[in-house]
């Protein structure tokens, strides 16, 4: 894999804040800084993992990319294949202009129980997007949906059933089929396997990898499960309080954990292998509120290496090289911690 690949999405200084309102007049009293200045390039054909704990802004970032939540500031530039569609900043588009790009970017959700409309059959749920993108005849829509269901290893005639007749894993496949229906280039998988039983999780992961190969897809894989990201992702971005603290190729991240947060996070994952028990770094305290994030490095109150500079200056995401590959980390003390790790 070369570093100079085809970029599909470029995020520049992306910020998504939620206003906190109070009182009769709905006065704005503060902001939840869910996503706070993200710079990220997503390459065509890669699987990028976004990991972090709840409240770190990974889901908000996913939804901001799809413009399901409008970002407060920053740019999300979409680059069409081979430069055919040019480069467009999607944050500046109106809802109507955005429609053309909705076809390119899709999402698969976490909860298989709420991701399908219980009042409609599978065909009923999946046909409206097709109608919207110009498939006029019902016969043709039935054919397309049948093909999609087969693509996710389900039977064609399932399309006339209701969601409650399916198991969690089957629903998740249908959710994937729905995302594929408009032939997107990039799919955001928002905790797509987290709610599934482990035996089913493996089926869905393998399906996702299969589809990626066949359809040349790009995934943004949002999850809190670092064992899954290690298996499926090419690159991983670790988020903490709305920022990326570390971004690296998967093998690099697991071998050279530079940021103290990544070290603690990886060490606290229970590993189902008695021969791989590692010494756990137990972090004290909780994730601070994103309403009043700590000054300087957001991680410094829980960091065991924290120095004076950490509480005053926000560290930038810098490029370092580990194992001959690009590795980005935002920590003032990265050299110190490399030796400590």
């Amino acid at each position, binding site marked *: 894999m070369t570093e100079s690949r085809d970029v599909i999405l470029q995020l520049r200084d992306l910020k998504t804040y939620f206003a906190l309102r109070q009182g009769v007049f709905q006065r704005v009293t503060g902001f939840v800084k869910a996503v706070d200045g993200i710079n990220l390039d997503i390459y065509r054909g890669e699987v990028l993992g976004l990991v972090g704990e709840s409240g770190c802004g990974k889901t908000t970032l996913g939804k901001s990319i799809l413009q399901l939540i409008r970002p407060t500031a920053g740019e999300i530039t979409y680059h069409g294949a081979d430069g055919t569609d040019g480069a467009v900043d999607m944050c500046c588009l109106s*809802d109507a202009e955005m429609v053309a790009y909705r076809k390119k970017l899709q*999402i698969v959700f976490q909860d298989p129980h709420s991701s399908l409309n219980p009042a409609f059959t599978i065909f009923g749920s999946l046909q409206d997007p097709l109608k919207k993108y110009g498939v006029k005849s019902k016969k043709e829509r039935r054919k397309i949906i049948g093909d999609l269901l087969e693509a996710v290893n389900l039977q064609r005639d399932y399309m006339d059933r209701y969601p409650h007749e399916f198991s969690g894993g089957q629903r998740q496949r249908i959710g994937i089929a729905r995302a594929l229906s408009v032939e997107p280039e990039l799919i955001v998988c928002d905790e797509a396997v987290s709610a599934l039983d482990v035996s089913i999780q493996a089926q869905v992961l393998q399906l996702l990898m299969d589809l990626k190969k066949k359809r040349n897809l790009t995934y943004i894989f949002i999850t809190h499960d670092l064992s899954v990201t290690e298996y499926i992702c090419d690159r991983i971005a670790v988020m903490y309080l709305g920022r990326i603290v570390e971004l690296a190729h998967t093998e690099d991240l697991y071998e050279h954990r530079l940021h103290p947060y990544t070290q603690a996070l990886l060490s606290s994952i229970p590993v189902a292998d008695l021969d791989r028990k590692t010494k756990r770094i137990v972090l004290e305290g909780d994730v601070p509120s994103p309403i009043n994030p700590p000054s300087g490095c957001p991680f410094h109150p829980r960091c065991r290496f924290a120095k004076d500079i950490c509480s005053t200056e926000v560290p930038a995401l810098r490029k370092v090289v580990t194992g001959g590959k690009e590795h980005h980390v935002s920590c003032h003390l990265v050299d110190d911690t490399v030796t400590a790790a």
Partner: protein
Amino acid sequence: MANSALNRKFDRIRALEEAGELKPLTGSRALRKMMNNRLAMVGVVIFLIILLSAIFAPLLTAHSPTKIDLRSMLQSPSGEHWFGTDKTGRDVFARVLYGGRVSILVGLGSALLAALIGVGVGCYTGYKGGILDVIALRVSEIFMSFPQIILVLLLVSIAGQSLANLIVIFVLTGWGGMYRLARARMLSLREEEYVQALRSFGISTPMICYKHILPNALGPIMVNITLTTAMFILAEAGLSFLGLGVPLNIPTWGNILNVAKDLRVLQNNWWMWLPVGMVISLFVLSVNFIGDGLRDSTDPSQQG
């Protein structure tokens, strides 16, 4: 032991299950639960009997509800006049049947219209949120804070007594409740992931909220429509009894009851008010049974 009945039921189910005689349940769970609810089914039967006899009134009685027959005033019930006759010789049975048409029309019609407006507004603003939602909420509060009876007095004195006026007043005072219900359902349903998925395809807002979300909110709305129908029928009867409802020349259940204001009628001519009073009570009761049954059957948290 107090649980022995329950234990016997468990034994029976287990025996059937082990014999492989229980089939997977098919069809709508809500419908099945409704069918198993005895009270609700009694309600449905009574409701249908009253509704159908009102609709097919000409087939059930040869008498006219409005024809005055001075030769047969104040007759007690007989084979000819089942519920007797009133002070001007009109057949009370015919009046109850034909009166049912208007009363049910007012009750059900107003409830449906109120639901149409309330749900129509509530669905859209509840989904969309923002300033539109705040405005709709405040407007509904204004309407709901007016006392119904004062509004009726006001409108009757301005526009005169008429059926249409009554329906308008019922709708004006009734849509707020429906609106709030629909809005509350929308606020929780709009967070469902299938809604997010539709948005990610760029499907338009009216399409999402009316076609895709509304069917999921229909359960509680149906319950509310039935209960509101019962409420409006009672309100019509009450207002007509006071002489403020439907004009007296049109037979309605309330107008028939109107005669009972006369103490002499109340004491001597029981047939003029007792049958119609019972029909009103039965009808309202049956509608309430149906409403409760619907609520239980559409509530997923209740097992059975």
